């Protein structure tokens, strides 16, 4: 039975969760005119890598990344996959910490950050311990419940848009792509990059059609555009650049007189955080999978619990926001590795397999 819809739901949710917080600020910081070029460039890279990655994977029916790399040699697999695990762990640490910070700052000022992190880590550990199948089904349920809410917020967020801020469309900097290697732009790639690695870990009992997933990625493009352009259209470039979370600020300006709630943002943000929870659960599940393929003796429950404990302790040890930023910077290298090397290697292995298959009819 085709489970593409589950995979697509998960793919969309994971990315939506990542787009709206830091991505707009990073893009707005990386250039002042013609943000669309940065968005489109990022999306084109994402699309290409996604295509290459899934193409490579599709050559290995019913095998996941670990099996594929193992097929070439154990040492090869360890060397290639250890950074992936490190990346996943780092991402989890940073994400838990960043989102816990956001939660405490925005909604529950009185609750200490350790208890928020405890909630996040515990819920993620619970969901990931239920296994990947239920994780994907959870994704669909959450999408059904929360996406209508998000859609409403997207529509409402155009309330204060001033379309004149669209202009000027382009300048020399955006046309020449000179922003590409600057830090804010690279950081913005987090929104594109971290999400799709999970496609390689999907077990064979969740069959999906590669084409549908690749096609579904186009649904993300308007979201990327909205996330950057809503704050730009609402505040103008100069003001938008001053905010830490420009999109959230833009939604905060929305006033709906017929609604009993004053701040639509809160619901929007919490929905996004729930998507991030799913992203974290997925990352945790992947890490446990990698852990167990490295140490086969460890039982899933133990692996899950110990990973959650370590994750929580590491998160609690991070003292302040500056250390988080430093971690984010370090993670860029791993990020580059995971988003570039892993899809390319998978693709090349796929090609090699096809050649061998052709040579050996």
């Amino acid at each position, binding site marked *: 039975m085709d489970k593409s819809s589950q995979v697509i739901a998960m793919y969309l949710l994971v990315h939506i969760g990542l787009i709206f917080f830091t991505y707009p600020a990073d893009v707005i910081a990386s250039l002042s005119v013609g943000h669309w070029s940065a968005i489109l460039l990022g999306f084109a890279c994402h699309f290409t890598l996604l295509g290459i990655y899934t193409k490579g994977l599709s050559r290995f029916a019913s095998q996941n990344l670990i099996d594929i790399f193992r097929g070439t040699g154990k040492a090869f697999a360890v060397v290639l996959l250890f950074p992936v695990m490190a990346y996943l762990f780092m991402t989890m640490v940073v994400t838990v910490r960043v989102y816990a910070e956001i939660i405490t700052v925005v909604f529950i000022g009185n609750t200490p950050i350790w208890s928020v992190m405890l909630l996040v880590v515990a819920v993620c550990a619970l969901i990931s311990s*239920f296994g990947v*199948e239920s994780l994907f089904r*959870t994704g669909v*349920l959450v999408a059904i419940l929360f996406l209508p809410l998000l859609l409403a917020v997207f529509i409402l967020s155009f309330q204060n848009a001033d379309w004149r801020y669209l202009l000027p469309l382009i300048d020399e900097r955006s046309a020449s792509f000179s922003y590409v290697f600057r830090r804010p732009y690279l950081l913005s790639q987090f929104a594109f990059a971290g999400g799709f690695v999970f496609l390689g870990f999907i077990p064979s009992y969740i069959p999906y059609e590669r084409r549908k997933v690749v096609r579904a990625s186009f649904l993300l493009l308007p979201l990327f555009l909205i996330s950057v352009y809503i704050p730009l259209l609402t505040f103008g470039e100069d003001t938008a650049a001053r905010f830490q979370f420009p999109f959230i600020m833009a939604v905060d300006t929305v006033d709906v007189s017929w609604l*009993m709630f004053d*701040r639509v943002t809160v619901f929007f943000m*919490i929905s996004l955080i729930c998507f991030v*929870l799913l992203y974290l659960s997925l990352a945790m599940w992947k890490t446990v999978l990698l852990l167990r393929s490295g140490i086969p003796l460890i039982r899933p429950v133990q692996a899950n619990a110990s990973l959650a404990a370590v994750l929580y302790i590491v998160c609690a040890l991070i003292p302040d926001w500056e250390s988080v930023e430093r971690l984010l910077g370090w993670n860029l290298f791993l990020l580059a590795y995971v988003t570039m090397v892993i899809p390319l290697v998978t693709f090349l292995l796929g090609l090699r397999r096809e050649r061998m298959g052709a040579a050996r009819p």
Partner: protein
Amino acid sequence: MDLLAFLKTRQEQDADLFLHRMFVADQSVVLAGFKSLIDLPQTMMLLQQQARNTVASERPLFALESGIGTCIRDADERRVMEAISEGDLILLPESVPLCIRIVPVNRTLTRAIEAPTTESVLRGPISAFNEDLDTNLGILKKLVVSPRLRTRSFWMGSDVRRHAVLVYMEGRIDPALLTAITQKIESNQETDVPDLMALTRLLGFPKWTLVTRYNTTELPQNAASALSKGKAVLLLDRFPFAIVLPSLLLDMFFADNDMNFPLFYAVSFRFLRMVGVLTNVLLPGLYVALVSVNPEVLRIEIALSIAGSRSEVPYPALVETLLLLLILELTLEASIRLPKTIGPTITMVGGIILGQAVVEAKLVSNILIIILAATTIANFAVIGFHNATTVRLGKYLILFLSAVYGLMGLFVGTVVLCAYIAKVSTFGIPYVYRWRARDRNG
């Protein structure tokens, strides 16, 4: 004649057992059975009639093919007692060492077919299942007139035996599901099944769960439609509900009866039920979150009016909500136990307490009354009492999370519930699966 001797000693311990000596076509026989289950005079008349016919056609009376009953081969004490306790008549001829089992005229020990008592039908067949297995099967067969209908009979239990019939439609049911169910039943046939909990164990489902893996329905119409969708229906003797396997999330919202209405209505009913479940699960948590953790989310006018109504309530919103929820749950539980004649009393007392007095005594705020009334009403918008119970517990998780983490807790609780629901599966069929009827014969 050691069987007869055994039955005689047995009779001393069991006053209900009769041993009746009579002549059937000039042969002396002993009849054995339970007085309480068998209508003896009628049965004897029938027996005489049959015997006369047999003699008239010049066939030997106790030959196997003469057809007054089935012969129990290698009759031992256990088998004879089993036959007797199943309500059959045992005939022991004195001349030949035989033991014949006869289907007697039974006493009527079952109520007539009535309207359902736990589910109501607005448009659709109104007769409901009752305690008699054969009656239930009969009603079901009347509704599903199809050559594909198959039944499998099982006797479960070793100490206390219980008859069960598994009904399914060949070519509609997934063979894997059928095999899974029959294997479970067959391998655990010695387990006694006094209640559905035991059945849960027998079928290998976890005991500690929020979601029952099967639906029970009193309406033959529902069972019939489940059959034609490819589900399996298990009928237990003395249990006036059909057990439909597997249960799915959408069964909570989609009643078969909806399809007796135009599609617009059917869709809106279903939507309403979904809103009902969400209301029931989320509303108390939302109240607590908004009042005690995130009041800034509300419009200032509403925030002030809620704060005003709570100004004299001495404890936090969580305690307030729990207190009133407890009373509501007690009212629900009590009204199940109450005899019908004093049922209105509790409604009145409950109404006064919950409606007016508790607010005037400043124990809870009046907005909470509105919220909890909506919650309780919404709870029973779902189909089936077991589903209403399933929904009932979920709100407490969300309530506690909301009290600690506010709106964040509310949403996270929802995600956790979603994850739990997504985890549940019955014989490999996920609870959140959208069941599609399909023809598996091509």
